[in-house]
């Protein structure tokens, strides 16, 4: 037992046990196929596949693994627009998220600063923010489509490189992901200790110098908390957006495979989304921790 803890086996073993239990539960609930072969009246062999189980259409873990293999073994393959390796899909989704997220930070951070610095600005805009904040991405997307209807950027060959649905997607990601950045930045700016502001006052630092030497460094840990939460939301929104506009990506793939009755790929997509979301969060936490300790 001592050795067990000494090697930190519990940190590996316990999650593994939990994962196994979940897979076991999944296997219990999932259906399984039964293939019956019979000879019909004309003498031909007929194979009939029937599914049984608690939830008979839910693929079992083994079925999921077999169906997902081509997507996992060749993660960057491109067999068609909506038939690509899972990491290639993930990469497409991440690219879109990165763009939308960048827009969210670009707008969210200054808005947060204004909220943190001015009581009147807060009084004026807080109700609007509180009303817009809980609106679902599913509601924003149609508005984005209307807002950017008719937008078309074409390349030399006449293909649309950036159209209404792309703009609407970015709009939706940005507006949904912005709020944690806005609110946390505002909190961070309000939490700048009066002592630091006194230093600025005594030294008669200019507005710009106060911003860059005092306000931003002091609010940075809070801002990064906001950035991390915003990234989480951006990743959450991307799936919904891709499902609605049918863009190739993890979310688009998921919806298309549902429509194609390949249910195993839904589970593959969900796991991919979860794992990438987790990696993104860990990555942002690392950066956040670095700023917190500095």
């Amino acid at each position, binding site marked *: 037992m001592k050795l067990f803890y000494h090697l930190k086996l519990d940190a590996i073993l316990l999650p593994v046990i939990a994962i196994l239990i979940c897979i076991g539960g999944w296997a219990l609930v999932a259906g399984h196929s039964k293939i019956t072969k019979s000879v019909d009246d004309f003498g031909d062999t007929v194979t009939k596949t029937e599914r049984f189980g608690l939830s008979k259409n839910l693929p079992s873990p083994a079925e999921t693994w077999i169906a997902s293999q081509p997507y996992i073994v060749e993660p960057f393959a491109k067999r068609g627009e909506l038939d690509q390796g899972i990491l290639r899909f993930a990469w497409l989704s991440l690219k879109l998220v990165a763009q939308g997220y960048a827009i969210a930070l670009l707008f969210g951070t200054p808005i947060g600063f204004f909220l943190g610095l001015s009581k009147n600005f807060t009084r004026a805009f807080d109700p609007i923010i509180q009303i817009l904040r809980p609106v679902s991405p599913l509601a924003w997307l149609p508005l984005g489509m209307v807002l950017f209807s008719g937008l078309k950027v074409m390349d030399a060959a006449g293909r649309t490189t950036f159209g209404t649905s792309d703009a609407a997607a970015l709009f939706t990601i940005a507006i949904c992901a912005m709020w944690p950045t806005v609110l946390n930045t505002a909190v961070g700016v309000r939490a700048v200790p009066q*002592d*630091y502001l*006194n*230093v600025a*006052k*005594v*030294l*008669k*630092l200019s507005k710009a*110098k106060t911003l860059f*030497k*005092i306000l931003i*460094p*002091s609010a940075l840990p809070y801002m990064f908390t906001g950035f991390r939460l915003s990234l989480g939301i951006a990743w959450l929104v991307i799936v919904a957006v891709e499902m609605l506009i049918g863009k190739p990506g993890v979310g688009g793939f998921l919806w298309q495979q549902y429509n194609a009755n390949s249910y195993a790929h839904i589970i593959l997509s969900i796991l991919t989304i979860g794992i990438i979301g987790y990696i993104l969060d860990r990555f942002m936490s690392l950066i956040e921790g670095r700023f917190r300790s*500095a």
Partner: protein
Amino acid sequence: MTTRAPVLELFKLTKSYPSAKGAAVIVKDFTLNFAAGEFITLIGHSGCGKSTVLSMVAGLTEITGGGMILAGRETNEAGPDRGVVFQSPCLLPWMTAFENVMLGVNQVYFTASKEERRELAEYYLTVVGLGGAMHKFPGDLSQGMRQRVGIARAFALQPKMLLLDEPFGMLDALTKMELQEVLLELWRRNKLTTLMVTHDVDEAIFLSDRVVMMTDGPEAEVGDILEIPFERPRHRATVLADPRYMQCHNHLLTFLNERSHIRPSRIQTTPPAGTAQRSEIDIHGISELAG
């Protein structure tokens, strides 16, 4: 002490905050003149408004009544012509000690060359004894070392006045004594007019030319002023051995214990200074008034 024109004149300085029950007056009609190079200490009970006075002089708290003339010019806002050392050193934790000092130096000596500014910051950091640690971050410095940076930062601005807000209040007794010497040495070299706020009676006597005792708030004002007779440069042992030391000590303690609630502006006759003795109480034991 000196007959030169005062560097700082405080005339009926008043601070009040609006409140539900009319204006809450913290400090009322605080009048005091500072001769050039004079070291004045404000002493009083906690919460009496002595820090408010210093904050007004620093320009960090708005003056609601009366006025302040610094070097012949009326002032009511903060500026680098008054170097402030705060109780907590207020160093920016994302900058090294050197960068913290440079922040002010760059601001005040923007015409000097980069090299000159660097030398200035390094000089003051070395004088306060941080020659070897100037590129450390505040988080890696002890409380006392941080306060040394705070002192270096204030002096490096070469201000007209030095304002010290309980600068040694958070330090242990030994570090406190060490830093008092550092401060006195720098003060002697720069001949800066200084206002310090403290509640440590011994510190006030050892450092000051005059100790100004404040009455209890609200509506705090100057209650009594004690001239400290020791010549400079002072040595702690000599000062402590001087029989006049206990007289000063007792005078201050008597004021704080018995007379701080009496406002001289309300009564016509001021009590005779320096006569009250309280032999029944062991005064050595309560040299620092906490609380």
